[in-house]
């Protein structure tokens, strides 16, 4: 447990997750239109909220990515990342149970990039675990030496 609360564990996990989220957000921020098609492909949402999700979600990914990479408000970013990853994992798992291999829209904005949904769920789980650690197990404060009386 002490290793999970070590400041360097948090720096490394934050940098790794942050880099993944920045990479994932890049294409979607530049052009969210193909993401509309990809979210549609999950067949989970009614048509209305698909568009706002495609407009705003990439920006949230970008901001939490920058925050985790730099350490700026990392716990709050990790809490939001946990929410995002939990949502992605549940959406993928539902389609995996349905037997549908969706284009996940994780790193590519191509709707033709369909992959095995169960493998995508398995790929999300370590990232979800890292986000939970960053959120719920804040790093230990460095010990300060007690001042000696002169």
């Amino acid at each position, binding site marked *: 447990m002490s290793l999970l609360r070590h400041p360097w564990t948090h720096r490394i996990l934050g940098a790794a997750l942050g880099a993944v989220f920045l990479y994932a957000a890049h294409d979607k921020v530049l052009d*969210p*239109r193909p993401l509309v*098609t990809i979210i549609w492909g999950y067949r989970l949402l009614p*048509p209305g909220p698909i*568009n706002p999700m495609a*407009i705003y979600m990439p*920006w949230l990914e970008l901001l939490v990515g920058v925050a985790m990479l730099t350490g700026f408000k990392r716990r709050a970013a990790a809490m*939001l990342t946990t929410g995002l990853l939990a949502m992605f994992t549940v959406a993928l798992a539902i389609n995996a149970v349905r037997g549908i291999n969706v284009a996940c829209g994780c790193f590519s904005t191509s*709707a*033709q990039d369909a992959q095995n949904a169960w493998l995508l769920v398995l790929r999300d789980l370590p990232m979800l675990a890292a986000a939970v650690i960053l959120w719920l197990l804040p790093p230990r404060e460095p010990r300060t030496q007690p001042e000696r009386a002169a």
Partner: protein
Amino acid sequence: MRIIRDAALFVAATLVLGTAFNLAPGRHVEWWGHGIEPPAAGVDFQLIDPASADAMRLSLPTVVFIDTRPEPEVRAARVPGAVSLPLPEVDRLLTPELTHRLRNADAVVIYGAAEETDVEQLLAQQLRLRGMAPPWVLAGGFPAWEASGLEADRERSS
């Protein structure tokens, strides 16, 4: 709770940035979805390979190629006579003259930069929803055209 306040800050920044960038010229995505199905082959477009597209270009009188890549890439190299029409610019660049030209063409072929043709399929759907016949989408995009050794207009370096 400080963490909740920080998270709300991220959400607020997301709303501001997302809204601002979606209001930028040529970037607008409808704020609320209207239930348009994803583009479907055979309904919104037909895929065509580069050799067949080139044969069609040489044998039919009016075949219009639409290039969805950014303007500098189009200027550098393109299918001979191709029209530049990036998807985000469709509302601005699809003038009545161009619409008339596309409606009266023997065939319209859309191509882009990537081997995946999602953007081209979305543009094909946009054209079909504007009352045009389903266009062709070039499988493999411009890289496949070039790899096939087919004719291309290239910018001359001075």
